[in-house]
């Protein structure tokens, strides 16, 4: 057992080992009450972003892989269809992940000087789940998009 383990550690990169450890932690965390808690957190996070308003589907596009092999670093690009002029621009894009222990991922603040409403980053996903983007335009309208990303190795520990 010990020697196998050593062999495994020697063979894997540090990142893989860390990602693996993360996946194990998550298996523990995603059972029973902990899971219900996470779902409640997502609803609360969404409400915090939306207030009482109902977003419409459209204008926002999420570009990300269908299947992410490593949940520790998943590339994602958010694009919003808006001219980015002082008369009409995107003021805020909120990114949430409904299956993470903490559903908030990022809030991006834009203005007409941003020129183009496109933002890319790399995110952690604990397991297969939906990522949700909500964009607020200068006329206060809210637009949303959702995309499921399948995760092979969870990334909350890595």
């Amino acid at each position, binding site marked *: 057992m010990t020697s196998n383990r050593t062999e495994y550690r020697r063979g894997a990169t540090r990142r893989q080992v860390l990602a693996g*450890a*993360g996946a194990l*932690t998550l298996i523990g965390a995603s059972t029973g009450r902990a899971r219900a808690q996470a779902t409640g957190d997502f609803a609360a996070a969404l409400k915090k972003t939306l207030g009482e308003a109902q977003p419409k589907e459209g204008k926002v596009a999420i570009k990300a892989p269908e299947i992410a092999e490593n949940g*520790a*670093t*998943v590339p994602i690009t958010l694009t919003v269809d808006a001219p*980015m002029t002082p008369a009409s621009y995107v003021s805020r894009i909120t990114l949430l*992940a409904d299956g*993470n*222990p*903490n559903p*908030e*991922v*990022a*809030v*991006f*603040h*834009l*203005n007409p*000087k*941003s*020129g*183009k*409403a*496109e*933002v*890319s*980053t*790399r*995110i*952690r*996903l604990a397991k297969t789940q939906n990522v949700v983007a909500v964009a607020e335009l200068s006329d206060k309208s809210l637009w949303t998009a959702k995309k499921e990303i399948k995760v092979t190795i969870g*990334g*909350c*520990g*890595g």
Partner: protein
Amino acid sequence: MAEARVKLPDKVKKGEPFEIKTLVSHPMETGQRKGADGKIVPRMIINKFVARLNGEEVFSADLAPAISANPYLSFFTVANAGGKLEFEWIDDQGQKSAYTAELKVEG
């Protein structure tokens, strides 16, 4: 605090949006992970990023632990005149990393 890298075009056209890519080295410790001693490793992340052109904000981001280690952010901006682009990353302890670049605008 941390080492930052920024990539932007050598020169840009007046009024035409261009992309800026940024990367900063940081573990983005989530506060969820257990260390070798079995204890939770305390959260320590970069929670704020700001980009300014000649002192005016062009883009900013509030970041949560779900942003990967060594945070990568790319975004756009547009300029009518050249000047100083400043980038700032702020962590949970209020420590800042900064990077400054000269922007050349033609046309």
